[in-house]
Every structure is written in C-alpha cells, then in structure tokens.
C-alpha cells in the first residue's frame, strides 16, 4: 500500500515539473504559434541560476532566506525570455515555420554553451535545501518532504495560471490574440506587448520548473535537451497550445514513466514516444487541442 502511495507521489512529482515546462511551451505556441526548441534550455537556465544563487548564499544564511531564493531561477529565465523575444524571435513571425525552428535550434546551441561558460562543465547542486526538510514516514517507508513541496508548487502554479488566463483582463486579451491575432490587433490590442508577455510567462514557468527540480537532482549540461523531448511528448499528447492538455499530458507522462521505470525499464522512454505517436495518429490535434 505505502509503496503505491510513494509511486503515486513520484508520478505527481514528475508531472508537476513536466507541466511547468510543457505548459510554458504550450502557452508560447498557443499565443505566438512558435515552437521554441530552446525552451528546454530555459528550464536548465532556471536550474543553474537557482543552484548558483543558493550556493552563493549558503554560508551562514538563514534557512528561510534560502527557500525564498528558490524562485530566483524562474525570474532569471523570465528576464532572459523578455530579452530574447524582441531581439531574436520577432523578425521571424512573418516567415515560414521552418525558419523559426532553425533559429530556435541555433539559440539552443548558444544557450547550452553560455551555461557551460558561466558555470563550467560540472554539475551544480543545491542539495542542502532538499536535505534540510527531512523526510516523512509513509507506513513503513520514508519519503522526502521536499518532493511534496515540489508537488504543491506544481499544483499552485497550475491554479494560478488557470486563474490568470481565464479570470483576468489580461487573460482575455491573451486568449483573443491566440484565437485571431489580426482581429485582436484591430480591436486595439498591442500584439507585440502580448507576445513579449506570453513569452516571458512561458519562460518563467520553464525556469520555475528548473528551480524546483535542482535541490532534488542537480543542474547538468544537456538537461534542457533531454527535457525538451519529454515536453514535446506532453504537448503532443495534450494538444499543442492547450494548457488543460499540458496538465493532462503531464499527468499521463508522469504516471506512465513512474510505472514504466519499475515495470518495463528498457522500453520506458520508447513507450512514452510511442504514446505521442499514437495520439498524433488518432487525434492529430492532441486530446485537448483545437483542430489544426
């Protein structure tokens, strides 16, 4: 019984992080119709910044301050996004999708090396945050409390995002731009501003994903590239451009992966990619996507 609970928690843990990454990717695609191949690198960037900031402050700082520093990676990723969108991506909206994929692939290569330049080739850790919270007894087993914090951050982020998109004035503008950019523009919406805001929020989410993952694991080179393909699986299953889809997709991937690792470890990744392929064949727009 407690083993099952632990498996469930692990699945939720994984789904929370994936939702943050894939939700950001999906939001950006939904509003701007851009698939950002460098999105995984923003997640990695968030992880590195948080690990670095926590590492700098570690000596003698109060534990509460350390936990408050956790979102630093998210804000750094948001800032990076706010710089990248107007400078690199804006010239490409009018051009074919192929060019957008290419330019974001170039960006991926640059960001990967920027992280190598700033933080070196070795993993960066912030394990003290993970260890300080101790663990919880579930039946006969123990479970780290920090993982529960990650899950609650994931749930909170999903809630905030839902309220933001469906309950605020800005959300209305965002959805209007997503549905018909030209008509929204004709109604007086400053599309450029909406784009930069949407991109910044998407990057913030990816950075937050990286920030909360880093105490439990560590920041390594290549983590962004690995995360991106899994985020692709999530958005393809859920529907590119749909936040509900990203949530459901993340849950599906989280559960399949958790049980896959213990039941069929050799083909665990292959099964995930095959799920994406099957969904694309049966429902090309994804489970929650609008028909393309």
């Amino acid at each position, binding site marked *: 019984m407690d083993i099952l609970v632990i498996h469930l928690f692990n699945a939720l843990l994984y789904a929370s992080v994936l939702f943050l990454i894939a939700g950001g990717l999906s939001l950006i695609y939904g509003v701007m119709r851009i*698939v950002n*191949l460098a999105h995984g690198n923003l997640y990695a960037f968030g992880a590195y910044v948080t690990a670095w900031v926590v590492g700098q402050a570690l000596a003698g700082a109060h534990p509460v301050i350390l936990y408050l520093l956790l979102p630093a990676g998210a804000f750094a990723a948001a800032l990076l996004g706010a710089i990248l969108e107007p400078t*690199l991506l804006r*010239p*490409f909206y009018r*051009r*074919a*999708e*192929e*060019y957008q*994929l*290419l*330019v974001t*692939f*170039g*960006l*991926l*290569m*640059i960001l*990967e*090396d*920027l992280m*190598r*330049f700033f933080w070196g080739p070795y993993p960066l850790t912030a394990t003290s945050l993970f260890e300080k919270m101790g663990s919880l007894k579930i039946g006969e087993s123990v479970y780290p409390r920090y993982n529960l914090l990650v899950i609650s951050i994931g749930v909170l982020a999903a809630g905030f995002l839902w309220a933001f998109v469906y309950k605020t004035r800005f959300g209305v503008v965002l959805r209007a731009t997503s549905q018909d950019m030209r008509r929204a523009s004709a109604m007086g919406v400053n599309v450029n501003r909406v784009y930069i805001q949407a991109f910044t929020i998407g990057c913030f989410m990816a950075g937050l994903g990286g920030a909360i993952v880093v105490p439990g694991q560590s920041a390594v080179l290549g983590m962004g*590239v690995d995360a991106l*393909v899994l985020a*692709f*699986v999530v958005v*393809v299953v859920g529907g*590119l451009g749909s936040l509900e889809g990203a949530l459901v997709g993340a849950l599906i991937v989280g559960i399949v992966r958790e049980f896959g690792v213990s039941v069929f*470890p*050799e*083909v*665990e*990744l*292959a099964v995930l*990619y*095959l799920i*994406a*392929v099957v969904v*694309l*064949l049966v429902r*090309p727009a994804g489970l929650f996507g609008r028909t*393309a």
Partner: protein
Amino acid sequence: MSTVPLTLQARSPMKALPWAVPVALLLFALPQAIDPYKTILLAYGLVMGIAALGFNLLLGYTGLLSFGHSAYFGVGAYAVALIFKYFHVRSMELFLLGAILASLVVSALFGFVCVRYTRIFFGILTLALSQVLWSLAFKFYPITGGTDGLRVPTPTLLGLPLDTAGDKILFLARNYYYYVLGFFFACVLVMWVIVNSPFGKALQAIRDNETRAEFVGIHIRRYRFVAFLVSGVFTGIAGALWVPLNGLTTPDILYWPFSGEIVFMTVLGGFRTFSGPIFGAVVFNYLKTSAVGFTTYWQALLGAILVFLVLALPGGIVGTVVQLFPMLKKRFSR
C-alpha cells in the same frame, strides 16, 4: 524571403557539366595533394553530403522539414554494427545492403505515419519517432552496447583483401576515400535524375501548391511517401558509409540534436539548390572540426552562425552565390 528564387532551376545535365567535371576531378585528385588527416575529413564531409542530399529531397523539393533524420542515419550505422556483431561479416557491400534494407523498412514504417502531416506536426512527429529508436539503442545494453556503442573494424572493400598492411589511417585516406567518392558520385547522379524526373517535378508542385497539385491529379500522400523512402535510404547509406570512418557507433547519432546538424548543414549550403546541401555538409564538417579545435564553446559559435544565416542569408552559401552571380555578370558586362 522574397529575394530567394523560389524555383529550383531545372538545368539540363549538359549545363551542369562545366562546373561538375572540375569539381569531380578535384575530388579525385585531392588525396594526392593533401595529408591523410584532411582526406579523411573530406570523406566525412562527402558522407554527410549524401545524408544532406537525401534530407533535402524532403525539405527543398517536397517542402517537409524533418527533425528526425538521425533515425535513418543511425539505422544505417547500427545495421552495419549489428551485422558485424552477429554474423561476423566484414564485407562493406554486405554492410551497405543490410543498411539499405534496414533504412528502407524503418523509413517505410515511419513514413507511413509521418506523411499524413505537414509543417510543424511533421517536424515534431519525425522527431518523436527518431527518439523511439534513440531510447532503444540507449537502453538495450546487451544488444547495442548502450552509450559504449559498438565497435566495427575496417571492412573489406569489393571483396579484396586489405592491402595497406594494417595501416588504418592510410586505408581510410586512400582505399576507403575512393570507395566513398564512388558512392558519392552514384548518389549525386541518382538524386539528380530523381529531382529532374516527372516524379521530382510532381514533388515540387506539391511543395509549391498542395491544392493545385491535387487538382492536377497528383496523389499527394503517395508521392510524399515515396520521397520519404528515398530520403530515408540515402541517409541510411550515409550512416553505413560513416561507420568505418568513425570505427564506432554510439546512440549520439540517433539523438535529435544530430538531426538538427543535418538540417543545419543543408541550410548552410542552401536548401533551394541541388548542390547546396553537399557544399553545406563539407563546409559544416570543416567548420565544426576547426571550431572544436579552436574553442571549447564551438557549439555557441555554430549556433551564432546558424542564427546569422537564417537572419541574413536564408539562401545559404550556394543560394547566395547563385543570386549574386547574375548581378556580378551584369556589372562586369556594362
């Protein structure tokens, strides 16, 4: 965008001869003039040129951007490694035969799924499928060796015994270089025939206007499927030819950033031209090798070049030269 010529000009073979013959002679003579290391580098470039040529049948001629061509390259390479591991065969011709069959089967399977989609979904689907293969190669350690990869010794060429007295460098720079060159010429010729055939014209019609092409009576999905097959097999051949050069197959060549490299070299050379991808592959190979030797941050350098290319020179090297040529001609004749 508007400055890029939208049609791949159909030239008769005769018109291509004045520059194709000198290039061919140069490629033939070069190993006598440059040192073995550079010759091997050139062989890598030619091999990647075959892959890029196959890739460009989809991107340049059919208008489909695949982000999963690492799959067919990897299948070709792993076919060679597995044939050697399980059948202890060392004949390059048998290796190639196996690689062609394997890449044909895999691209038929993947192509059947992928050609239902275009644009962004085609890209994502090809990427997802290539990752299925990557994860299998990565995880099935007993068969594929996982990240250690599989070693493949020097093969025998055309059934002849090895005559370079076991000197692998010399073997690769002489015998194997000419072997690759032979296949390279054959592949270029076949691709030339394909793109200038009615089939090739139909692909270009589909790329330019899908609806009209359908009205003319072109069975779009079937044409795309065949293009996908040809593209996959060309890339598979390149993968097989690559193995003896590298001596080792690892899952890296199945991972999606490798697909990105194939896209990169094609765009670098210019995907709107026939010869662009070939030039792009050779140049990319030199560029990457020298960048790796020059700085730890070679990836950022290549990334910056890619961004610059897409921003400023979407026609690539060959596309830009072709575009500048008439302008120069005009200026000088005045």
